[in-house]
């Protein structure tokens, strides 16, 4: 029984750190059901984790009552490699995407790595101002091989 392609699942959590592992568990299980390999699953899970942490810390400034909507969708169409799309929507402070940048890697100190990690692991990242306020972050990860089909 296969995960249907081009059909989303949705998860809505609050901007609290304790909800992050719940979202991560759902997305990891989704990847496993698609038979995505462990390495790719780990990269997707960590990117989700970092993106959620940033929404909690920066878009909502640590406020625990913000909503975060997560859409997970396997994209499958002729001529394109199977891809997982993660879309995160918040209703917090929107900042110019150009300002969303990690620190210099050589400047070793706590923090300032999340955005770098997402860029390393995901194939495409787009921040867009959401209608009605907040930000929509879309991340794409190619699954290669038979992923997404199986």
């Amino acid at each position: 029984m296969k995960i249907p392609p081009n059909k989303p699942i949705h998860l809505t959590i609050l901007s609290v750190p304790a909800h992050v592992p719940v979202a991560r568990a759902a997305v990891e299980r989704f990847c496993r059901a698609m038979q995505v390999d462990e390495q790719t699953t780990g990269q997707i899970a960590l990117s989700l984790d970092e993106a959620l942490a940033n929404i909690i810390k920066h878009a909502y400034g640590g406020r625990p009552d913000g909503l975060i909507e997560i859409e997970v969708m396997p994209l499958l169409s002729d001529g394109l490699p199977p891809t997982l799309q993660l879309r995160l929507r918040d209703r917090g402070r929107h900042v110019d995407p150009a300002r969303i940048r990690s620190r210099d890697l050589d400047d070793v100190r706590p923090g300032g790595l999340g955005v770098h990690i997402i860029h390393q692991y995901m194939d495409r990242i787009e921040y867009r101002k959401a209608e009605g306020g907040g930000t929509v972050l879309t991340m794409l990860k190619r699954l290669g091989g038979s992923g997404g089909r199986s």
Partner: protein
Amino acid sequence: MKKDVQKRPIAAVRWEGQAAVVSVTGEIDLSCSGEFQDELLDVLDDKPGSITVDLSNVPHMDSSGIASLIKLLGRSRKASVPVRLAGLQKRVQSLFEITRLDKVFEIYPDVTEALAK
């Protein structure tokens, strides 16, 4: 309710002579990296000769967990206490590589090799 729940994120601190071996369990993310950092710094307060952080039971760590470890490293350097990481699972090893922190931390395949240094 908590009868079969393990202590997290630091399951145990074991002493081998002057060396402290910290066993970490479970996923480290924003929901527990604060506790993680506090408990690591508590170990440093006990003035060990070295600290080995056993990450073999950590399937997932994010940049907030890394931040806790960098904090420990900074403080430990001031106290001249070596910090060693041991047993990184593939996912965590990869995170250290893409953040180039594999060049900053001493990383060993397991606790035995870390303690042999």
